[in-house]
């Protein structure tokens, strides 16, 4: 299911929801990096492009709790198709709270729960008004044997996750907590990494992200990172400062 010989097609799921916390910047940056790409916007109620075609990347960004519930309902008919595309290696970038929709369920503080897509094996617990804030430095291995990519990000959320992700995870964290805060520690030894599936790891913060890797969008070498020098400097500065002992976000 590769699109390597054609201009990339990036499907943005529910862009009208996914604009929280600057996550709209993800698409802006991808557009700047991939000027030839076609961006397909799928609004709530529309049939997704991925239903019968193969996009180069599926992007869904952070949204409110109510919108999470609506998105889970809207994507439920396409659950198997999403799983099929994931298994086939189509990159999926779900940032911020969007990733929580992929789990089995989301529970509310009042005890009610919302059914997730059940593609990944974890449960999300909303704990409003408790706010969890953290900075993250982790590594992402695109494929077995490939060079790890350093990823920096923020965690700002009401939720903690429960589940087993030892065999399937996005990042190994060096700094910051993973699925939940039970083992929260600023500097986790490399040999005991926390693992988690989702961060607020916007591509605009990730000049080394696979989502921006030209090899995954066809026409090798044709695409360049937008504002590459500045993006790399910002990434390196964040990676340095996030590792400082005690570094944190404050309310």
């Amino acid at each position, binding site marked *: 299911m590769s699109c390597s010989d054609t201009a990339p097609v990036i499907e943005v799921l529910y*862009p*009208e*929801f996914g*604009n*929280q*916390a*600057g*996550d*709209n*910047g993800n698409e*802006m940056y991808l557009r*700047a990096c991939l000027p030839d790409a076609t961006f397909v916007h799928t*609004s*709530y*109620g529309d049939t997704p492009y991925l239903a019968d075609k193969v996009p180069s990347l599926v992007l869904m960004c952070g949204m*409110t*709790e*109510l*919108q999470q519930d*609506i998105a889970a309902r*809207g994507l439920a008919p396409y659950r198997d198709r999403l799983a099929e595309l994931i298994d086939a290696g189509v990159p999926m970038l779900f940032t911020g709270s969007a990733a929580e929709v992929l789990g089995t369920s989301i529970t509310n503080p009042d005890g009610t729960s919302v059914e997730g897509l059940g593609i990944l094996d974890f449960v999300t617990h909303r704990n*409003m*008004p408790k*706010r969890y*804030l953290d*900075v993250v430095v982790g590594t992402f291995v695109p494929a077995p044997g490939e060079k790890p990519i350093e990823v920096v990000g*923020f965690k*700002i959320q*009401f939720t903690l996750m429960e589940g087993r992700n030892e065999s399937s995870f996005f990042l190994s964290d060096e700094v910051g907590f993973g699925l939940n805060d039970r083992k929260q520690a600023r500097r986790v030894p490399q040999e005991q990494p926390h693992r988690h599936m989702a961060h*607020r790891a*916007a591509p*605009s913060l990730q000049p080394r992200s696979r989502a921006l890797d030209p090899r995954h969008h066809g026409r090798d070498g044709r695409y360049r990172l937008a*504002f590459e020098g*500045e*993006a790399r400097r*910002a990434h390196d500065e*964040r990676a340095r*400062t*996030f590792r*400082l*002992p*005690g*570094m*944190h*976000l*404050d*309310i």
Partner: protein
Amino acid sequence: MTTTTQKTPRFYLAMLASKAAIGALSLTHHRGGQVPGVVAEKIDPDFLSHIDRPEHVVFVSGTNGKTTTTNLLSDLLVDNGYGLVTNRAGGNICTGIESTLIKNASVSGAQRERYAVMELDEVSFRPVLPRLDPDLLLVTNLYTDTFTRSADPDYVFGIMSHYISAGTRLVLNADDLISCRMAPQNHNKVFFSIAELPDDTPDPQGIVCDLTACPKCGGRLEYDYCHLRHLGRARCTACGLTNPEAQYVMTSVDREAHTFTVEERLIEGHPCSTYHFGTYTVANLYNLFAATVAAREMGLSPEQIARSLDGKVNITAERYMERRVGRHRIVNIASKGENGTATSVAFDTIRKEPGTKAVVLMLSDAHMAEKSTEVEFTGWLYQADYEYLLDPQVRQIRRGRRDGHRPGASHVPRRYRSRHRDACGQAFPRRLPQVDYAGCRHHVHCVLRVQRRRRARRCRHARQEDRGGQP
């Protein structure tokens, strides 16, 4: 003056300690907005329930415009002889409300002034409203606010809506399809709305809109018009949700005469009143209109309001200042920090001003960078419409700095800088002729901090001079 619960010995101790704190702050020339409340809460955690409440309590809340609207409403009331206490110099969270009431109280806790008009932070509804139920609550609007603290409008809406009691008179903005749905348990509501204006847009404005989908069902919204961001008239194509009918309608605006007309549909015959405004922006109109409606609900007559607005009552200079230096207009616009919407509205105001412009961005929140183990979440920058400054009339952009703060170099997004270079053919020219206008600064949260620093610096210099220049 009424008491909500019985006073305890801890309450009296808290009153004495907080009064002592006010005295100490005064002696050391500090304002200490929230300190008395912090002290009182330490001793009596339920202090707000124990202190007497003024006879009439009014809260003004909402993401944008609450400070300006509170000040306007207070000024209107004071100008018409109302004795009131306000938290203009204090904080808008629970300890700020407590501090304001402490300053207005005797040691026994009895309130001196009959009216309290206070700005209330949206998330602080949770600790405040169960203890101090207002008679009137004005909500200006709901937008995305500081993400680290306030998350999203849905979350804030849920908190506010939950804690509003059925007895409070609610004054809501009918043009805001988010906040107008507040508190379904309350049936004591009045709505205000601005009718279609010539400069309206057919769709919501901005790189990020807080209302791109129905807030109830997620369905597609069809807009008739938008005055400011998502404020306007819309309906959901799926569930039919639409704006409520307003009882106060701004039916027309005369920009040349600096007047707006309000039709009161609560009253038989729908009488109209005309009021004066100073500087025209839609945000200013909303603030002025909201304050006018609240003042009417509190008993001021249209004539009293009109007389005050014709006289000295206007938008306070803290948020908007304008002066002329030679042939240049210098306009200073403050906007809330870490808030893409407020910043965008300021940029939009600037681009709509006539003439060529130089824009100075002064980022007061750069003080956050001074904390060595604290990092700022920069996501809001992607929600701010820096692209508005690509207007060809904007000839120059400079980064400014406020006293004691490092300039925030990284705060001018690269996406903007690059495009501006393309548009102007050069990067940030230092000198450009024929600039008529200059404006904009960001973030007002640390205005007091700056004033304190300036005062501290002046004191330090004075002490040094007393010691013959020795540090």
